[in-house]
């Protein structure tokens, strides 16, 4: 089991990089239109995109979303990502730390704060909470000096995974108990199939600090697992999930604490739309991993271009700051507007 966890990490990286594992469905942000602020024209150099994340000032409303760790070859990836995060003062997420609980020798693959002082998000799967005490989870976070914990939920990925864990009966109760027990802020995240208002409503009744959409439209973990699955029995759910924009709006309509948007965020336009809809920040994963082909410089180059794109979009909207962006008027176009109507989403409570 221990070696299986570790080797699976490497398989995931290789499959992601060497195959087309993106969703065919879009993140639905193309159905959001922002109305420029009625003020003087802003030039790009005047735009300040610094903001707060977990109560701390960061350089941009983006973060490196959870990806990897737990195999010796993932250490350098994490170190490169952390170097880039440090350069731009943006947060970074770790991949599932289950591997280091199973094998303490692998802890170093996650220990990037040894080198860079960044906001670091720890990670564990919701299906694993039944196996570990809250004190073990806290020790896991202490060891890497994490600033918060992301608990990822991934029933669709587990279904498609040959060795998937399908025991979710107490998953929500375990999440609630963990949030009650540990001193760290807990963030619930999906891995690419989105979170609905029904789930967000339940989370609202716990001490969970935040929700990350983990919506459909970007990397498709079902597709990744199907490459590892010798049968094609699960091909029929390949496009399963809630697109990121829909998920963000559904969550924001009922959950009043921190919400971040991840899942197919690829452009400055996606970022400004998500922030305007109420996301605190946007997580990006696959493009960062691909940029790592050229090491930390490749990742830095990617982030610099994205920040430039965000500032460009904000200048077109006459927004000089993230606060101004958050107060922009927006319209939601069909078919997303029709979907939200069917879902009885109250758009008056988004912000």
């Amino acid at each position: 089991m221990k070696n299986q966890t570790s080797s699976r990490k490497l398989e995931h990286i290789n499959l992601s990089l060497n195959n087309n594992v993106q969703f065919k469905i879009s993140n639905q942000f193309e159905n959001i239109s922002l109305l420029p602020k009625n003020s003087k024209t802003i030039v790009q150099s005047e735009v300040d995109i610094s903001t707060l994340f977990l109560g701390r000032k960061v350089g941009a409303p983006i973060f490196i979303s959870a990806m990897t760790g737990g195999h010796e070859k993932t250490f350098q990836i994490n170190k490169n990502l952390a170097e880039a995060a440090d350069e731009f003062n943006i947060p970074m997420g770790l991949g599932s730390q289950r591997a280091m609980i199973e094998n303490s020798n692998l802890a170093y693959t996650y220990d990037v704060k040894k080198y860079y002082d960044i906001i670091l998000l720890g990670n564990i799967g919701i299906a694993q909470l039944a196996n570990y005490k809250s004190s073990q989870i806290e020790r896991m976070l202490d060891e890497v000096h994490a600033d918060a914990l992301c608990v990822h939920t991934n029933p669709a990925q587990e279904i498609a995974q040959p060795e998937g864990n399908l025991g979710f009966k107490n998953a929500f109760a375990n999440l609630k108990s963990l949030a009650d027990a540990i001193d760290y802020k807990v963030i619930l995240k999906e891995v690419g199939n989105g979170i609905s208002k029904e789930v967000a409503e339940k989370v609202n009744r716990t001490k969970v600090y935040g929700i990350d959409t983990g919506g459909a439209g970007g990397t498709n973990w079902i597709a990744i697992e199907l490459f590892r699955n010798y049968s094609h029995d699960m091909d029929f759910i390949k496009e399963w999930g809630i697109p990121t924009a829909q998920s963000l709006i559904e969550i924001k309509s009922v959950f009043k604490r921190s919400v971040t948007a991840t899942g197919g965020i690829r452009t400055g336009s996606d970022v400004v739309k998500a922030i305007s809809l109420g996301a605190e920040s946007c997580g990006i994963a696959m493009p960062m991993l691909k940029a790592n082909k050229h090491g930390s410089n490749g990742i830095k180059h990617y982030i610099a271009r994205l920040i430039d794109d965000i500032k460009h979009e904000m200048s077109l909207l006459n927004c000089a700051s993230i606060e101004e962006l958050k107060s922009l008027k927006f319209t939601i176009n069909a078919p997303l507007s029709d979907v939200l109507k069917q879902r009885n989403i109250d758009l008056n409570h988004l912000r």
Partner: protein
Amino acid sequence: MQKNTRLNSGHLRQNRESNKLINLLIMHMNSDIKFIHCAIPNINFNDISILQKMTFYAGNSQKRVSINCSPLALQVSFNPDLDNRLKLIKLKKTTGISLFLSSKNTKILFILHKNNIIKKRLNSLSIIKSEDGLDAAKAIRLKQLPFLNDINKINLIEKQLKVVMFLTNSKNITQLARAPIIHLNNLTK
């Protein structure tokens, strides 16, 4: 107009009376839906049951009977009447299927109950050919009957049906029939 109204209200009365029976006829599936993903299902996959409770009136005595059976119907090339009762019994033993349709006559549903065959006329509900578990789940959610004609696909489709139930947090068919959905045909193109 009046004549049509009488016919319509008669049709409605018939539907209300046979509300708990399965009334089926073949229709092209003109209503597509998308299930809403549940990120934290409250169930273990192995605890999911696809058995559906069906209640109908049997025989001339109009005695009400209930069976728990797979929600899938199997379409067979022979006439599933009393002459082929043993064939149906054998099929049920090997596949677990209790509902049968004939490819030659699609207006009658044959229900195998305690080794007896009960016929029900298909009236207003659609039967939908299901290529996979998602088709079957959609049919059930839309109060339609999923059927297939390949005996070798039964296990797979039932397993796939359980997958959809897991991802919609549906522990049983009753919950699946109420799972949150979006009607895709109602979306502006």
